[in-house]
């Protein structure tokens, strides 16, 4: 067989093996968890009818709306605060970690590793860690959001800096600009819009995550949901869900408008 033929043969074999491997993993996993895709689909109509009969908020639920709104606003603020604080720290780490702007390779490597560790720990795990350290409080939730966001944004910012500003950084270095000049005159103007776009994305994500984190850390809208849920007040819990959906959609809408303005 000619070399080219052998090459494609090997490629095909590789993909077949990978596919078979995935099928095997799915099969094993569904045996272990006793999950069946067919059953799942079959349950769908029942789920939908249950949804519409049990999750329409009643008048009692609407009476609680101001309190829900309060918690909702608290959650939004916490997400925004955590994201913005993380963004500032991330910017510093990104400047240190970017190939284009790092001071030296050692510091660059350290800041990449720190960011990567933070990013790779799931937000729920962060929440548990701080739960042990600080107990149930809003601050615990804030920290969990902060650390995960910091890891994520640092990586996004590093890529933004390398992509958007490496050529102009080089030009400014060539004219004799100092390091602070280069950061403020080349890196910031060329990367800021993209960075803001990442921050907006992270605010959206964090409002969603804050709900889950709140379940664990006993704060915000997530906690409110768990109280209603555990006391079997499904209709009030449903109102929490509906208002969350409304908030998430609104925030996405706002950030899309902002994105269009800055980019």
């Amino acid at each position, binding site marked *: 067989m000619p070399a080219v033929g052998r090459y494609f043969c090997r490629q095909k074999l590789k993909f077949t093996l990978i596919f078979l491997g995935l099928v095997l993993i799915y099969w094993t996993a569904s045996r272990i968890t006793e999950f069946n895709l067919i059953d799942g689909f079959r349950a769908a109509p029942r789920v939908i009818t249950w949804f519409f009969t049990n999750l329409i908020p009643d008048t009692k639920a609407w009476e609680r709306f101001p309190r829900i709104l309060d918690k909702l606003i608290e959650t939004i603020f916490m997400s925004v605060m955590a994201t913005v604080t993380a963004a500032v720290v991330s910017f510093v780490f990104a400047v240190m970690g970017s190939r284009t702007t790092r001071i030296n390779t050692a510091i660059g490597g350290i800041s990449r590793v720190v960011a990567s560790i933070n990013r790779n720990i799931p937000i729920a795990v962060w929440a548990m860690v701080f739960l042990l350290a600080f107990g149930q409080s809003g601050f615990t939730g804030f920290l969990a959001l902060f650390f995960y966001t910091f890891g994520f944004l640092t990586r996004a910012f590093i890529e933004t800096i390398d992509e958007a*500003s490496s*050529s*102009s950084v*080089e*030009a*400014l*270095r*060539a*004219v*004799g*600009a*100092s390091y*602070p*000049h280069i950061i*403020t*005159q*080349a890196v910031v*103007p*060329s990367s800021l*819009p993209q960075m803001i776009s990442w921050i907006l994305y992270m605010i959206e994500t964090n409002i969603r995550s804050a709900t889950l984190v709140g379940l664990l850390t006993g704060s915000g809208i997530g906690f409110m949901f768990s109280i209603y849920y555990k006391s079997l007040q499904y209709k009030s819990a449903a109102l929490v869900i509906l208002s969350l959906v409304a908030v998430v959609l609104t925030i996405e809408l706002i950030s899309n408008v902002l994105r269009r303005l800055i980019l």
Partner: protein
Amino acid sequence: MIVPILTNISVPKAWASADYFNQEVIEMAQLEVKNLTKYYKDVLALTEVNFTVGKGEFVSIIGPSGSGKTTLIRCINRLVDATDGSIHYEGTDLLTLKGSPLRHARAKIGMIFQHYNLVTRLTVIENVLHGRLGYKSNIAGVLGIYSEHEKEKAIEVLSLVGLEKYVYRRCDQLSGGQMQRVGIARALVQDPAIILCDEPISSLDPSSAKIIMDYLRKIQNELGITIIVNLHQVDVAKKYAERILGFNSGRLVFDASPSDLTTDTIHHIYGAEAGELIIN
């Protein structure tokens, strides 16, 4: 030019001595590259390169891809750190400089890039003023504070390259040829004694390329600024340069005027096959 001045004014005897004139001749070499060698890890990019460039010369560097042209240009303004050798620029060895002396040396050396390297989200004038950063304190530069004189100078160089109508335009709304002219203006506002160009016309169509090369010639003729330009187009190099440096695999293999560039020497620089293709 010096002689009439010397006869008109009374000068100390020592100045008029032969020694003085010898020194003057040595100082005519604005840029002196000696035994320049560069390794990227174990890749040898430049080997023992020696040449000098006089003030106001128009020098073109040619050679096949990977022959070390970019590396040479970048060693001069220290975007790349040479492994060995020296580069004297107006008397000081650039390769030993650090910190603010390095910044000041760079401020006097302009550079023009193949991909213009502008901050495209900023306006033309903002990009041109970046050329002044080499002279600025940290605070003034960070805050973007420029003197009236600097702003006037920026407008002046912009009209020199025919961009007076585009002063407040954002750079991402310009054509390639216009962006390269912004690049030239940014270099000019530095008030440089020398401008290094790394393939300034490789991303441009022939007519924009001609405009750029004509501006470079104008700058050399009218402002007396030394021009060193990497080119891939031998015909362009022949047309504009007063002197051609040919590189092959990191070695300087040709250093003479364009008229000495024959089919044979082109073979020598580019290797046997390339000759016919380039000369036509």
